[in-house]
């Protein structure tokens, strides 16, 4: 169970920028319980986007967005609507966003911050990782998480130890920033990285937040 909280709509609209046609993709798993995903959140988000002048080119609800097989199979039915979209807005946790980004050759924006892993690890079936930092940066990095995959949690690009696409810590491990670079380059979004990412607010991921997981609330 991963706990997520909605990003403010202002932040989401800021991320979408000039993009007009948006495909909405919501998770029906943990995010539904946290009310950041599921049918209700999907309907609300669609209304919010349309109110802001966006066109929702299509929507899809998938049981577990962290499962790339499920995502790919479900989205195969949406090829046309997906094609029309400038980007995808994913109502899910950090792992869901990363999984969708691996499946879809479009910009994938996160609609939520993941605040806790909820004590139950290993639910997601693949290599995507989330550290529940509470300030999701996947929008900036093209759906690959530097907090989870960079050995130094760097937010402004690779350190001097990145060579031939590998990390200085281990020559068999990909440099997260090389992956981010490749992904943003293929999406034509390298300009993202020209902006300085400011010092992170780690309060959002302190142990206190982890300890305050809404497990009991979710159980009710």
């Amino acid at each position, binding site marked *: 169970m991963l706990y997520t909280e909605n990003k403010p709509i202002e932040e989401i609209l800021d991320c979408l920028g000039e993009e007009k046609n948006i495909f909405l993709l919501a998770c029906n798993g943990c995010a539904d319980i946290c009310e950041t995903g599921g049918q209700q959140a999907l309907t609300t988000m669609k209304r919010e986007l349309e109110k802001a002048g966006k066109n929702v080119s299509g929507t899809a609800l998938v049981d577990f967005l962290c499962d790339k097989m499920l995502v790919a199979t479900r989205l195969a039915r949406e090829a046309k609507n997906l094609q029309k979209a400038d980007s995808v807005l994913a109502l899910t946790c950090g792992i869901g966003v990363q999984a969708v980004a691996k499946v879809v050759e479009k910009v994938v924006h996160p609609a939520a911050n993941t605040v806790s892993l909820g004590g139950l690890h290993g639910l997601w079936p693949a290599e995507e990782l989330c550290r529940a930092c509470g300030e999701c940066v996947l929008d900036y990095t093209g759906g690959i998480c530097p907090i989870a995959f960079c050995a130094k949690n760097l937010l402004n690009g690779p350190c*001097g130890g990145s060579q031939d696409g590998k990390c*200085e*810590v281990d020559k068999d491990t990909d440099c997260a920033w090389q992956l981010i670079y490749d992904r943003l380059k293929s999406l034509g979004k390298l300009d993202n*990285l020209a902006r*300085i990412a400011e010092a992170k607010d780690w309060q959002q991921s302190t142990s206190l937040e982890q300890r305050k997981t809404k497990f009991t609330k979710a159980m009710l």
Partner: protein
Amino acid sequence: MKSGSRLEKVLTAGKFAVTCELGPPKNSNPQIIKKKAGYCAGKVDGVNITDNQTAIVRMSSIASGVIAMSCGLEPIMQMVCRDRNRIAMQSDILGAAGLGIRNILCLSGDHQKLGNHPEAKNVFDIDSIQLIAMVRKMRDDKQFLSGDPIKEHEPRLFIGAVANPFAGPLELRVMRLAKKIQAGADFIQTQCVFDIDRFGEWTELVTEAGLHSKVYILVGLTPVRSHKALLYMKSNVAGMSIPNELVSRMESANDAGEEGVKICLEMIEKVRKMEGIAGIHLMPIGWESITPVILERAGLLPRPEV
């Protein structure tokens, strides 16, 4: 003047700057620093005092910097993001400035896995670009990172950053340099240059982007006295590019030490002619005594009066 440091004065006066490196000892003996300082005192515009480089525990850069200062050197305090959070870093920045340090070099820092305490927990609360922005905010906006005011005696430091032309991906290297300048870097020191061709490619991109006119770039150079040193760096130091021709040239030389000096002098000659290069940064690892020899033979002594 942002800091009033000698390095700042030399660079703003348009003089070709020379800095070198002094690695603190793995003990508490100040004599080791004084001995190394003796080789370069009065012959360079600043000396980098490394901060637990390659994640190996050494005397702190602030303490070593103050000892170097007592020998007439101007320290450039290195600060990495690996070992301290923003509270400790700002505290040390205030302390360093209070002790008379006028230059800082901001780096991410080698990962602890590469050092002698791989079991340590790292910090990386902020990254090198955020560190640059933080020092600039303390100096120019008279504010801590949190926005709290520094009511008096803000730390006035000349802010340096590093650039590695040989790490990947090249395009991102230039973007990252631009971000460092935007964040507040006043000068840049590069990773050791052995591969002059690849360095040339990087310099071209940097000048194309007009970055050379916004920041002072000092080229990192490392004289070596054996081909084995080159081979060691090639396989053990992160982010290095060492051409094979250079290794064989060193290997076949009769007097490897002299050959190493010659190579370094040739490099100095080449980079001095390059557009947008404001100085050199000498890093003779474990061979500090060669610094004055190289500077003398390169015609970079005496240092200008500023």
